[in-house]
């Protein structure tokens, strides 16, 4: 691989490539660095051009912000509800897609992945309209349902990828030996799916927690952490918003690094197994 890339790319294009990389990553990271820096600036509006010295006081301001805290609680409630709804729905969909033999399978598949191709605001609106017909107005419930509509699709795709690699003979052998369907499901299928259940939960949690567009159209008068951040960015901007940015950036870097290290290890292991 190393040798290939050395010979395949000339000196000139290597330079172009490096310049491109530098510009690209400067473009990606400079705005974030500015945002983080402004969180430490002792100035009443988020700014880096007017520097009044280093301070941590915006952390204290944020810690006393009750609406942010209630938003965080709402976000967690919705995220848990979304996981509880979208994992079973996604798994059911995946079973149908991998084990149903019908000519409508393709159509059904199209419908099941369609929420991923639909703008989030439309999922939010249509859920709100639908539940208003039954007398339920916008709130945490409708926000959870709206989010679960498309997060179930993610879960389904993940479960499908796993189920397609399943060795079906194992289930059949267990059944031949007299195990009931429920036993086979509990003792063979669920353990096989366990890693995916875990990753699907993490993905569902992150998708739900970070969601803005679907949530803002379906949550009614209530708020989550992210919708609250959104309204702060438009009205009453203070560096406390930057402090949230700092926390998000720190958590993201931590998670992304863990993920990449994990992924590289898996890759190395796969190479080692293949010999």
């Amino acid at each position, binding site marked *: *691989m190393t040798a290939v*890339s050395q010979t*395949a790319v000339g000196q000139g294009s290597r330079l172009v*490539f490096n310049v*491109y990389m530098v510009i*690209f990553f400067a473009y990606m*990271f400079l*705005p*974030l660095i*500015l945002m983080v820096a402004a969180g430490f600036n002792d100035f009443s509006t988020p*700014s*880096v*051009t*007017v520097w009044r010295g280093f301070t941590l006081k915006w952390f204290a301001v944020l810690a006393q912000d009750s609406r942010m805290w209630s938003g965080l609680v709402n976000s967690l409630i919705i995220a848990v509800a979304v996981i509880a709804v979208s994992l*079973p*729905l996604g798994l*059911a*969909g995946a*079973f*149908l897609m991998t*084990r149903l*033999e019908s000519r409508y399978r393709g159509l059904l*598949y199209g*419908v*099941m992945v369609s*929420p991923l*191709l*639909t*703008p989030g*605001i*439309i999922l939010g*609106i*249509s*859920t709100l309209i*639908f539940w208003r017909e039954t007398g339920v107005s916008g709130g945490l419930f409708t926000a959870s*349902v709206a989010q679960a*509509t498309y997060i179930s*699709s993610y879960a389904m*795709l993940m479960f499908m990828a796993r189920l397609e690699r399943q060795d079906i003979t194992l*289930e059949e052998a267990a059944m031949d030996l007299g195990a009931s*369907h*429920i036993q086979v*499901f509990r003792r063979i299928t669920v353990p096989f799916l366990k890693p995916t259940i875990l990753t699907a939960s993490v993905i569902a949690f992150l998708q739900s927690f*970070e969601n*803005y*567009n679907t949530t*803002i*159209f379906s949550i009614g008068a209530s708020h989550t952490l992210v919708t609250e*951040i*959104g309204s702060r960015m438009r009205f009453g901007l203070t560096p406390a*918003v930057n402090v*949230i*940015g700092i926390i*998000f*950036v720190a958590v*993201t*870097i931590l998670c*992304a*690094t863990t993920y990449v290290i994990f992924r*590289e290890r898996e890759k190395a292991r796969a190479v080692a197994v293949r010999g």
Partner: protein
Amino acid sequence: MNRLLRSLGPVMTTVIVLLSGVWVVGMIIAPQLIMVEQSFWTKDRSGDAVVISVRIDRLYNEIDVLRFDKTDAEALAPSPRRDAKIAGIEAIIADKQVAIADLEARETTPEKVYSLRNYTIMGQAHLAVFVKTILASVAVTLIAFVVCYPMAYAVAKLATPGKAAIIMLGLIIPYAINELLRVFAWLMILNHNGVANYLLGLIGVGPVPFLESGAGVFVAMVYAYILFMVFPIYNTIETLDTAQIEAARDLGAPTWQIHRRVVMPHAKPGIAVGCIMTFMLSAGSYAVPYIMTRGTAEPWFTQLIYNKFFESSNWNTGSAYAFTLLVACIVFVFLVMRMFNVNIKDIAK
């Protein structure tokens, strides 16, 4: 059904079918249908209500006149003819009262009138916003492709494994940071007294109204959604056998030919997914214009939808606007699938 039933048994098959049904029908199809249905009718209060109340008033007047007739008739000498006349007048009064009750019921619960009015009232100004939103989203998609294709190729085929891992990390971090915060970072740069205007001020250029002109929305949108193009393309290029690229090179193909004839055809599903995601996120973005315009620049189409629902609470017109956006996205998905000759199976992976 057969394999499903055989491997999971009747109980679990029922549960699976039920759950899938709840999701597909109750969460995906029914809400969309109700939204579409709602977009095709209006509750006619204004125009009709006036007509109805005039008719009710007229009926009350007629009843009053009839009552006078009745008293006149009662003053006559008793005779079968008099009784018949009174009974006739009473019957007419009763009829008119029924008609009034009916009209009054209609006055308080206005009737649904099916029409295309929710679509036709969009008008020039809103239509212009719609067209602008779609064109700008296509532009965002094109820019994202031009910038991201080389990056995806570089990570998948050029960089050494160690370097690729670091570049990957550098892509995942900004990708995973919340959309709002990434937009906010650009708000700080393009604000009236932001970093960009500070730097321009140093070379003597007066403050440029980035936000007010709508340029801010576009810049932030490219930044917010560009990385949705990288990963799908990377995933497909990674599965391309490097030997194919080498073979093409050995046979004397110039670099652009290698990309046009070898890499891009292989990466088609990834490019399609990247384009669809970037376009859909841009056209359907509420966060970016909400934060970047701060109400000063021309709105994005999603903001019009939001206003119809939550500010003027005209849900029927709002539904029509939302459905218009949905149709635009569906058309885009099909166009891209036609253009790249891929189907939905290739896309959702």
